[in-house]
């Protein structure tokens, strides 16, 4: 089987939808020592108008008290293809020294997004989990369901 990394630019640029509400993500993240881990199938159209179905994964970690430790990542084949996190200092791909929040960009040659970091103002003003989710998901073109189904466990037998 061949990989689908050639679709990464299309996937990253596309508007992606996941069928889960922000409240539900926050409930998951609120559980002790919890991380958010969600897979879904996304249909992507390539440049030649061919349709591909890919399995994507969204991972969010908001465990630590300090927001600068939080991270969000979109993965294909279990490899980060897009994401946002923080470093006290890093070099952007043009060699300039940068600080703080940055977005990881996929490197087709290395087939990962670990080393290409571009500064992002996406987290400007973020102060809690809710604003972190709103701002990072918006930056990464991921929209959520507006319908929160609540905690069904309350009604289970």
């Amino acid at each position: 089987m061949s990989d689908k990394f050639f679709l990464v630019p299309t996937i990253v640029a596309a508007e992606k939808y996941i069928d889960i509400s922000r409240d539900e993500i926050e409930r998951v993240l609120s559980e002790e020592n919890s991380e958010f881990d969600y897979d879904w199938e996304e249909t992507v159209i390539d440049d030649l108008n061919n349709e591909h179905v890919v399995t994507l994964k969204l991972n969010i970690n908001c465990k630590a008290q300090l927001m600068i430790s939080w991270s969000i990542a979109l993965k294909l084949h279990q490899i980060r293809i897009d994401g946002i996190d923080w470093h006290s200092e890093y070099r952007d791909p043009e060699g300039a020294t940068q600080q703080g929040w940055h977005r990881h960009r996929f490197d087709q040659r290395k087939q990962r997004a670990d080393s290409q970091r571009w500064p992002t103002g996406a987290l400007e003003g973020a102060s809690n989990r809710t604003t972190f989710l709103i701002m990072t998901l918006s930056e990464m073109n991921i929209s959520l369901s507006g319908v929160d189904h609540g905690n069904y466990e309350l009604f289970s037998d």
Partner: protein
Amino acid sequence: METTNCSQIREALIRRLSDQIVISTVMDQCVFSLPIRGLDERPTDVFVEKQLGQSFRVHDAGITTSHLFAQGIHITEHKASMLEEVAKRLGVSYLAGTFEVSCKESEIQDAILAIGQCSAMATVESASHKPVIEEDPIKTRVDRSLTQWKPAYVREIRRRVPVKGRKARHSFDFVSFPQDADRTNTVAIQVLAPSHSPQAQAERYGFLVLDTEQLAPYESWRRFAIVTKVEEWGDRPLQLVQDLSQETVKLLSGEEKNIETMLPQIMENLSKAA
């Protein structure tokens, strides 16, 4: 090697290390970016937090664990035990995803180096982390099976077919339309993954069915539900899906490929059922 050369190298090394230690402040904590590179091409940040009295908390703020998770490396119980052992041997601890140690002012330098070393060593996992090329997604399998199955009595198989209910618009993943609707049935297929709430998935499917029930042309369509990761569903949502479908296939994780052998016979039966 002459002693003088060693001293020069030492001096140069000290200058190099000194130049590369970057200091910043975050939330009243000193952050030291150390020239210890992890295998994930990430700088090593160590935080120093003043506590009551003359005590300091030196830690990585959980960044190592968070960034490993972002790269696709999940800290399992086994990996956590290993990181706890690494931390212990270096005189610090690994607790709830954070490398940390409390120390006196005179011990800060050693603590910073130990936390930095732990943080860098934890990235060893990233050296063996490789892409996992999954098998085809279930919808690709269903699509391929339907194309291969398509008999002469089927006019067309469409994907993502919108349906207009009384109250809302919905869609079926696939619909098989017959040449002669008087002799063979239209079959609508819905692939149902547990998503984050199987109950919500089942109820959404239920709404689709009830909203289009007794409404032409959908009233005569046969509904075929393909439920994936059935081990995550639970009895009640699964029962709801079954009650609202003429046929339900339940696939355990890893059994997705079975749909390709099952689908032709099920489609044949549903298309020709009275």
